[in-house]
């Protein structure tokens, strides 16, 4: 008889209650139940009911407590989500703003290149118009040369506003355009004088492209004017290539009559040759000339790192 409530209680424990606190409370049942020795059956029943009630209460309370904790934690997470969403929105907005201002700057820069090109073209046209007032054929030639120099600079700006990367110029494309202009200017039939252009993939900033362009302008002009004197036929090779370790080489060669006058005499040099000297120095480059078979100019210089 004494053991029955214990067994009963244990059965209840096993069947229904797994909660830690509940189990601890339940463990106390036999002590109370056993203390009532008189009307043990009824007393134990009373105690069981009481303990069950207490347990239900305990579970209910812990459930409510749990619920509150979950709610609190959920609210906290929502606020963290708010922080993240705000951050995301703000970053997106600032990113968009940056893009927009970049686009604005680019279009402004394009506009400026466009205007510089237009102005240079005006200068070139003015020089052309002045030819009419010049009787001396030597003077006319000088004006023509100046026109070509101005045009070759204009070409750089024209190419800059036409490209997506406003800082860099595709030098190969530029050289082709430049040589084409010169052929037109001197009225050369491309069938008589062949032009070979071979360029590596080189991108230059405007600060380098302008002096390099002027050098090539002078070298090709010289070749067209002087190299192929008797029959006006031959070949001009332009090679632009990267050498090892951040250096590049510009080669302008022709298979014409070869350089007549020695270059050392500075006073007698033409403006073109003096320009080449000055610009090569400006670019910190080295000039080498061979006159074995026609004329072969080679200029090597440092170039900034090329992006791959």
């Amino acid at each position, binding site marked *: 008889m004494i053991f029955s409530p214990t067994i009963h209680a244990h059965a209840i424990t096993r069947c229904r209650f797994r909660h830690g606190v509940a189990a601890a409370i339940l463990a106390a049942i036999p002590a109370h139940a056993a203390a009532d020795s008189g009307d043990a059956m009824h007393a134990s029943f009373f105690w069981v009911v009481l303990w069950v009630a207490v347990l239900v209460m305990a579970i209910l309370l812990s459930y409510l407590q749990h619920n509150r904790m979950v709610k*609190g934690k959920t*609210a*906290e997470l*929502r*606020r963290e989500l*708010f*922080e993240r*969403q*705000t*951050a995301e929105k703000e970053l997106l907005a600032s990113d968009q703003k940056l893009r927009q201002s970049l686009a604005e700057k680019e279009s402004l820069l394009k506009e400026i290149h466009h205007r510089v090109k237009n102005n240079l073209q005006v200068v070139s046209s003015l020089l052309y118009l002045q030819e009419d007032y010049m009787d001396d054929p030597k003077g006319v030639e000088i004006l023509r040369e100046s026109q070509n120099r101005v045009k070759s600079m204009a070409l750089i700006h024209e190419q800059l506003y036409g490209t997506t990367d406003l800082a860099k110029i595709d030098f190969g494309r530029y050289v082709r355009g430049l040589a084409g202009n010169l052929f037109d200017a001197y009225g050369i039939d491309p069938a008589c004088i062949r032009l070979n252009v071979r360029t590596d993939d080189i991108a230059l900033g405007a600060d380098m492209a302008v002096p390099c362009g002027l050098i090539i302008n002078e070298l090709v002009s010289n070749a067209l004017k002087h190299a192929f004197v008797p029959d006006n036929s031959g070949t001009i090779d332009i090679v632009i290539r990267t050498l090892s370790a951040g250096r590049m080489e510009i080669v302008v060669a022709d298979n014409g009559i070869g350089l007549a006058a020695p270059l050392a005499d500075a006073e007698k040099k033409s403006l073109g040759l003096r320009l080449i000297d000055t610009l090569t120095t400006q670019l910190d480059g080295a000039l080498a000339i061979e006159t074995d078979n026609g004329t072969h100019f080679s200029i090597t210089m440092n170039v900034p790192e090329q992006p791959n």
Partner: protein
Amino acid sequence: MAQSKLTPQTLCVTSGKGGVGKTSFTVNFAIALVRNDKRVLVVDGDMGLANVDVMLRLSVKNNIRDILESGADPRQAMIFARPNLAVLPGSSGVPEMVSLGARQQNRLTDFLKTISSDFDYVIIDTAAGIGSSVLWYNRFCDHNIFILSPDPTSMTDAYALIKLLSRDHGINQFNLVLNFVRGVREANHTVDTIKRVTHRFLNLELFHLGSIPEDRSVCRAVLDQVPFVEQTPGSKAARAVYDLAQRIHLLI
């Protein structure tokens, strides 16, 4: 202790979101200040849903617009709800700022300045949202008080309004009062979160003046049309509001 007669401090109570307790804060805070021997004017800036007069059970007789136009003494529009506590009720027709031209806006500014001069504090209860009258009142006042609940939507709306005010209206000092708070932990988390966000993206430091707990006596007081600081002075919410009134000199 007494404020200078000529320069009442103007406080603007805003939230962005509605129903976070702007009006109940305004009314009860004003009464708490009056208990501290201050003279307070409450301006109901909420045109659409004006309810300061409802909370104080006032009957509105005079219309501000008429008074403005007739050129009579603007003080006639005020209602004294308690000794030292005057109310300029919204339903009496405080003209919507949007509808006013620059000249009339100046006249309203003068009107508010004239009417304010007899008080230590002027508290403006604004509408929800980011309407132009809300912006106008926020520019007009000396201290901006944001009522915030720990609810993320309230935080989002408050953040949007703070951003607008700081970016487009040159206001860069804001005070926070938390309402509907269910615990210190929740209050701290809310304040930390909104402070972090405004610091990071708007480069603003907010000042947390204090918090008002969620309290059933507030709802009951609203139903009875009696401010809870009077109906249940011992309640948690009332004590919190009295504490806030003690800290009013800390406002930035």
